[in-house]
């Protein structure tokens, strides 16, 4: 297919270019076990998403399906900085967040196929899942809507006097929604313990950041409200974790919100029906070849002699089994009973109270 030359040379700043200092500066001490855990967690997301793409292609998953492939280091790094009780809320590109916070692959996959065994009993789909147990508050389909919701969760924690923080994820696209700035203003005004995580994958659907704003950074927009922030290399799980720890410490100390603009990249289209004509194949391939977050950890493990090829193969196998099992479960799980149509519209008892 012919491409416009202008598109071909649109140099999407690679994370390495935009945040060169972070990659080397933020190198926390990390144990072998932790490193292996990040490898495993990221690989689970990738293999899960590949499988989801496959099931979509087979017609087993319907509607919208937004894959997280390429962005794995963001959630895995930030989950590594969280503690029990912390909350998370995100957009519709949410499968990775759910797996990273420990939600069950079977339940997520079965929700994608719209089955009874899914987290929302098949009534929410890819974009709408929740877990009281893992403090995961969705999966939101309206771009930017999760931002005030996340601040509201943080408002509740502050009101109740605990030290939990809320990770509120949104993309570079959502960053242009007005409610984000309404929320920044109140979050800083009320010193809410919320970490705004901008997953800057550089494309809002098909619109590159360059074509949607003259702002050079997104975290910098917090300055107008007095919110500190920084840009982070989102292809390096250790850099993400280090930045996450800093942000968490800020929030837990009662100093109010913090913004992390995590520079990342999605390898796949915006959703499954993405013609991918807004960026070049070479751009995507270059990112995969040079900056892949999973390869990065794999190299660290092998070079540091923390793991052998065989060890990693065993992990690959283990992950593949989990993913295949989830796919089998998602195919076998029955569709919801028809009377489910009429349930869960009103609550007699408050479900989250029994969490």
């Amino acid at each position, binding site marked *: *297919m012919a491409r416009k030359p202008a598109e071909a040379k649109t140099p999407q700043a690679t994370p390495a270019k935009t945040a060169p200092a972070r990659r080397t500066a933020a190198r926390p001490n990390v144990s072998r076990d932790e490193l292996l855990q990040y490898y495993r967690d990221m690989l689970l997301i990738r293999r899960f998403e*590949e499988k989801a*793409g*496959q099931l979509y*292609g*087979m*017609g*087993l998953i*319907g*509607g919208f399906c937004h894959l997280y*492939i390429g962005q794995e280091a963001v959630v895995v790094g930030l989950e590594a900085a969280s503690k029990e009780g912390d*909350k998370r*809320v995100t957009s519709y590109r949410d499968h990775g967040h759910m797996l990273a916070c420990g939600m069950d692959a079977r339940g997520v996959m079965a929700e994608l196929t719209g089955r009874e065994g899914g987290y*929302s*009993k098949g*009534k*929410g789909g890819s974009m*709408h899942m*929740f877990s009281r147990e893992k403090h995961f*508050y*969705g999966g*939101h*389909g*309206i771009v930017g*809507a999760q931002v*005030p*919701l996340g*601040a*509201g*969760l*943080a*408002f*509740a*924690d502050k*009101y*109740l006097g605990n030290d939990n923080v809320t990770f509120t994820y949104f993309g570079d696209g959502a960053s242009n929604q*007005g*409610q984000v700035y*309404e*929320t920044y*203003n*109140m979050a800083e005004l*009320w010193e809410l313990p919320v970490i705004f995580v901008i997953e800057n994958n550089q494309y809002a659907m098909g619109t590159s950041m360059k074509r949607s704003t003259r702002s050079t950074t997104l975290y910098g927009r917090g300055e107008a409200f007095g919110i500190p922030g920084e840009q982070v290399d989102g292809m390096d799980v250790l850099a993400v974790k280090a930045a996450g720890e800093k942000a968490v410490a800020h929030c837990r100390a009662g100093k109010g919100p913090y913004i992390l603009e995590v520079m990342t990249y999605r390898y796949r289209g915006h959703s*499954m*029906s*993405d*013609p*991918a004509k807004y960026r070049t194949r070479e751009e995507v391939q270059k990112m*995969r070849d040079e900056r892949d977050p999973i390869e990065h950890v794999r190299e660290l493990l092998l070079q540091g002699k923390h793991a052998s090829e065989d060890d990693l193969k065993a992990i690959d196998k283990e992950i593949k089994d989990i993913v295949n099992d989830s796919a089998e479960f998602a195919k076998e799980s029955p*569709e919801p009973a*028809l009377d489910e149509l*009429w*349930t*869960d*519209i*009103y609550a007699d*008892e*408050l*479900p*989250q109270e029994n969490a």
Partner: protein
Amino acid sequence: MATEILMPALSPTMEEGTLAKWLVKQGDTVKSGDILAEIETDKATMEFEAVDEGILGKILIEEGTQGVKVNTPIAVLVEEGENADDISVPASAKSASEPESEKPAEQSEAPAASAVEAVSTPEPDLSPDWPEGTAMKTMTVREALREAMSEEMERDETVFLMGEEVGEYQGAYKISQGLLDKFGPRRVVDTPITEHGFAGIGVGASWGGLRPIVEFMTFNFAMQAVDQIINSAAKTLYMSGGQMGSPIVFRGPNGAAARVAAQHSQDYAAWYAQIPGLKVVMPYTAADAKGLLKTAIRDNNPVIFLENEILYGRSFEVPDLPDFTIPFGKAKVARAGKDVTIVSFGIGMAHALEAADKLAGDGIEAEVIDLRTLRPIDYATVIASVRKTNRCVTVEEGFPVASIGNHLSAHIMENAFDYLDAPVINCTGKDVPMPYAANLEKHALITVSEVVEAVKKVTYR
């Protein structure tokens, strides 16, 4: 082991497409994410990526082939050492038809619940709202609302009030007067002018263990927040499969005040009443305002509580009870009668009751029903009354198209058609944006004489 590569569905509606171009050839090693082919549909051309790793053993569908059905094997991936020629390929027709068997059962299985429900009409609950002989006190609607919030905030530490000017200013309409002094800034939270944002923060807080009361200075401004009210508050319980409820009250004045023109004068009753997942309350009297607001704050679902600026200063008798509530979904027969049923709610009740007084002078005894809540709606009381009077007029301030009255008319037609001696008439506001000029405004609103006229029409007087 060989893996078949199937023709992908690039959208939920795609059934077939053209395999426009192969970007790999037989013998190529492919890994996950590599672009294999370009697929064309009537909507777009898309790139098709590999999911599995392997060697492209065999291309089964040549490029340029049109009308390739989704899920037809188009190529075979083999592992090193495998011979592609040894691979037997199942009949593509069989493979392509597989997903059909996965399809959900026929839609005709869907229960026709609303039609079924419609046939059986439950007995109306006509029990009194408070025991006979209860001591009463006179209060304005404003005082009743304030007392309800104050009592509930004392009762439950997780209840808090947020909104514009609710604290230091003492409330734009003085509903929250004194609450800041009593409960402090932690529980009476002044917000910036930012409805979309604080409505969303309220919903998030309701998920996080609190029971927010979000005051909109008027419901006109809630238009900025309507996405959070509907998409986040009303739908989350359902979307979460029952895991996450939103116990939150959105309240504030709704409808026309006086001479504030089009953007500040609109009745949203019918809008919100349309949304499954919301509860919608629109009280008329101070007793109902108090009893229903307390119920709203205790309810485990998002409640839209529609007040009225003109009614704030009106006084009514309120029972002097320590813990007085009114349940949702229970209409009140505000005046008994036998000749016609007038159904209304909110400030419409003022017109309905005044019309009933006038009609009594003409020898027409109107039964006036105050719905009080619009979701749930008390159909039973309305139907029972219409079966008795055989005539019905609805009264509301909102626009005529898709009004609450329209909905009731349909319900009455379905459930009491044989009892009707005349068509139901809906008295509503006029189908115009609210004008500013005093004379025009008066004509845009529903009037008592219009209600009287409608009743005379359905009673053939």
